[in-house]
């Protein structure tokens, strides 16, 4: 090949790089000092920089994976240990899906395109919305995109850049959304809570908000009065953004039907639809909207069309919203999204059907009820709020939560999520969740363990 090119070494191919910038390989990046740039805190095998065979790499990483494994998971808080049918990743992992690129060449990408079209349809069915995009990064960053949509469009009249966010929203969602939208001068304000739900007594009525953000079930697993909140918000001229768990929508009222006219945007994290927990990522964020907001959606959208002989096909559409066409005027800078997780989600929903999703959601609630019953039978353990909760529940413990969690770890139990950092005012508060995967034995073991720890 070098001969055809007409050079005599690979090094010659890099001749245009100014000599003073050249380094001689990643292996000698701190020339002169003799110091290995990867030293402190890194295992020797990595410091050395020797290539590992696939086998050696899998052993090394396998040891680390093993180190953290084997806990019975009672943590939720936005990431759930649901069963994923074996077929889901057998299909999503097929090279044709996994190693394809973004379907810019539609004719060579009908597999992905039709699948995402079907996914969009399913998400619209779950949320009772008119349009869905093909995913954003995750639920939290997706909320930022939803807020920007609302600010751009719905609030054109009011010109308000203020957004009211329920205090009962996942605090990480609030943080991420704020961190993103603040750069565009959007201000996030808080709708206060009472007893773990939005405080209906303290709803502002000055009509100054571009959008109101509700989560259902909320961060504490509680069910908000979504109808009333929606009607109130719309009465104020604000757009309503519902942050929802798509699995629970198999049994809960969809945002599109909240109140008189429904929320304007539904968004959330798709993790409960076929994605393993995987330390929180990759999963995917979804955004669905009422028709009026379709053109405000960020990211890719698939539409149905035809070829010259009338055969139905699918292609990326409304690309004029996107960065590769509209550059600085795009609805978002998103490019790479979370396509493969959407693939898994579509297969997951097709396999589970409405019936399977409802069964998983109901079983998760049943298990959480059983867990709460078991734990609150212990002295000093109580539900923090009167309810109703869906499949997560905040509990008050008689001891500091981090210590309890630590002691539970010793017994192989991930006992939930401490609320100490984000809600110190709630005292020794622990958020628990038992999905359909938790067995009666595991729930019992948890009860027993906690009993011993609190004793």
């Amino acid at each position, binding site marked *: 090949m070098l001969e055809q090119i007409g050079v005599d070494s690979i090094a010659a191919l890099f001749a245009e790089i100014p000599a003073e910038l050249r380094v001689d390989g*990643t292996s000698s990046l701190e020339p002169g000092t003799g110091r290995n740039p990867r030293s402190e805190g890194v295992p020797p095998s990595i410091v050395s920089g020797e290539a590992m065979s696939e086998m050696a790499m899998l052993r090394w990483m396998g040891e680390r994976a093993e180190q953290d494994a084997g806990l019975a998971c009672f943590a939720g808080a936005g990431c759930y240990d649901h069963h994923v049918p074996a077929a889901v990743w057998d*299909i999503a992992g097929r090279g044709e899906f996994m190693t394809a690129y973004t379907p810019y060449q539609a004719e060579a990408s009908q597999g992905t395109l039709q699948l995402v*079209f079907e996914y969009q349809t399913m998400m619209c069915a779950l949320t009772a919305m008119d349009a869905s995009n093909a995913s954003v990064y995750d639920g939290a960053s997706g909320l930022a995109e939803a807020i920007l949509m609302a600010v751009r469009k719905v609030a054109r009249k009011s010109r308000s850049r203020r957004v009211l966010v329920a205090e009962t929203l996942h605090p990480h969602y609030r943080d991420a959304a704020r961190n993103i939208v603040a750069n565009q001068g959007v201000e996030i304000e808080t709708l206060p809570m009472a007893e773990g739900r939005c405080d209906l007594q303290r709803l502002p009525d000055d009509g100054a908000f571009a959008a109101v953000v509700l989560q259902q079930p909320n961060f504490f697993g509680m069910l908000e009065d979504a109808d009333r909140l929606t009607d109130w918000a719309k009465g104020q001229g604000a757009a309503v953004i519902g942050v929802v768990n798509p699995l629970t929508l198999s049994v809960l*009222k969809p945002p599109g039907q909240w109140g008189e006219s429904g929320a304007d945007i539904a968004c959330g994290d798709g993790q409960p639809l076929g994605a393993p927990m995987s330390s929180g990522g990759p999963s995917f964020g979804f955004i669905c909207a009422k028709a009026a907001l379709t053109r405000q959606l960020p990211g890719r959208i698939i539409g149905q069309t035809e070829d010259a002989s009338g055969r139905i096909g699918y292609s990326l559409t409304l690309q004029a919203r996107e960065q590769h066409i509209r550059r600085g005027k795009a609805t978002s800078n*998103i490019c790479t999204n979370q396509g493969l997780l959407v693939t898994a989600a579509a297969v997951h929903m097709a396999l589970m059907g409405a019936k399977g999703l409802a069964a998983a959601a109901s079983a998760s609630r049943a298990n959480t009820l059983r867990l709460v019953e078991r734990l609150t039978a212990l002295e000093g353990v109580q539900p923090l709020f009167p309810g109703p909760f869906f499949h997560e529940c905040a509990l008050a413990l008689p001891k500091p939560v981090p210590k309890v969690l630590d002691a539970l770890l010793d017994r192989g139990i991930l006992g939930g999520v401490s609320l100490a950092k984000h809600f110190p005012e709630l005292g020794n508060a622990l958020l628990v969740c038992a999905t359909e995967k938790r067995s009666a034995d595991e729930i019992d073991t948890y009860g027993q363990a906690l009993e011993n720890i609190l004793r």
Partner: protein
Amino acid sequence: MSTIFDLSQAGRNAAAQCAGPDGAALAGLPEAALRTRPPELPEVSELQAVRHYTNLSAKNFSIDGQFYPLGSCTMKYNPRGAHRAASLPGFLGRHPLAPERASQGFMECLFALQEILKEVTGMAAVSLTPMAGAQGEFAGVAMIRAYHRARGDLERREILTPDAAHGTNPATAVMCGYTVREVAVDGNGDVDLDALKAAVGPQTAGLMMTNPSTCGVFERQAVQIAQVVHDAGGLLYYDGANLNAILGKVRPADMGFDVLHLNLHKTFATPHGGGGPGAGPVGVGERLLPHLPVPLVARDGGGYRWLTEDDIPGTIGRLSAFAGNAGILLRALAYALMLGRAGMDRVSDFAVLNATYLATRLKAAGFDLAYPNRAATHEFILTLAAQAKAHGVSAMDFAKRLLDFGVHAPTTYFPLLVPECFLIEPTETECREELDRFVDAMVAIAEEAERDPEHLRTAPHSLPVGRLDDVKAARDLKLRWMPG
């Protein structure tokens, strides 16, 4: 092909996936919170779902099946071993909020990756949390903004980009509240230094730039550009989408960049998944250290701990619910481990060798390079303007016809400043025979363009559908399946 909804029959389901308690579990919930009718999801058997999606998958091109010389997108082979590593049950089953004590294995992996990325870029610190290149850009520009603000320098409202820049660069600048000013690229693909000098000023927050640039050439004035921007008080952003061209040859830090993102799904290993996911870690020099997005992993005594807002009060904060696309980060680490340092250097060797070979052969076959005086990098640009003029066939027609040859089309019409362009990146994982087949296909199509241009204009001819009507798709919006 039928949609999954066409296959649906009321009452059908995959029984093994539908176990669970009956409605009783929902008793006690307020009526108003519940759905009145189940969502209209497909009702199919497990076989139907598996068969439907298996057959759908066959309608995709993919790296596992085809050569994919997509410039800028780096469609290379990603070793299955990396996928296997990230799919280890211990990793897949880890809850993101598991206490540090139960997360040391995972955190060690992240820490190791941070260190490796520091080394290959020369930056002072790396945060892994951004979930794709564009979010990395966002994090980077948000840090630039935070930097100026922290210094009370509030008048810098503008981000500069070369006019050939990737669309995410200007879009990101706007998302971060900046206006964008584009700087021209000259006829050799380098930034016009005079235009740049004229553009910078006290309003300049920074400049975003890729190198090798989106013109497929190495920006030789990188150091001068840095000088100009720094002198004006701005910071330099390196869009790392093309890092595979220079791994082990030159480090962004040495070119004067203050902040960068890496597309792990390009330079490191992640199959593109039909659109994602990716990961876009950011690296920074000393100046931006106080603003890194959280969480990060730090070494602490014998173990690892998370750095959060408490540790980095000037942080631009978190950008996702948890810690980014952990699974993609693990793939990147697996890839780096299998390559080792020497292998990493070979990535750029072979990426550039393959591209240069392809450019040489295509040129010899009569195609026009957009920058004939420049060395190819890991990618290069062809302009089909001559063919368009002579035979009335566009780059798009060439692209669609290539599909019939079982080759994915190169990136077309980007960068926009080159007419009828193909941005071609063969990547380091393809072998010579595959490159030769591509040249053969291009030559065959060029001949066909003379003989039967209509055949190109109506291509593709051998795929599941013919050329699709994009205009109709946007005009008669059908964004979801409707019965009947």
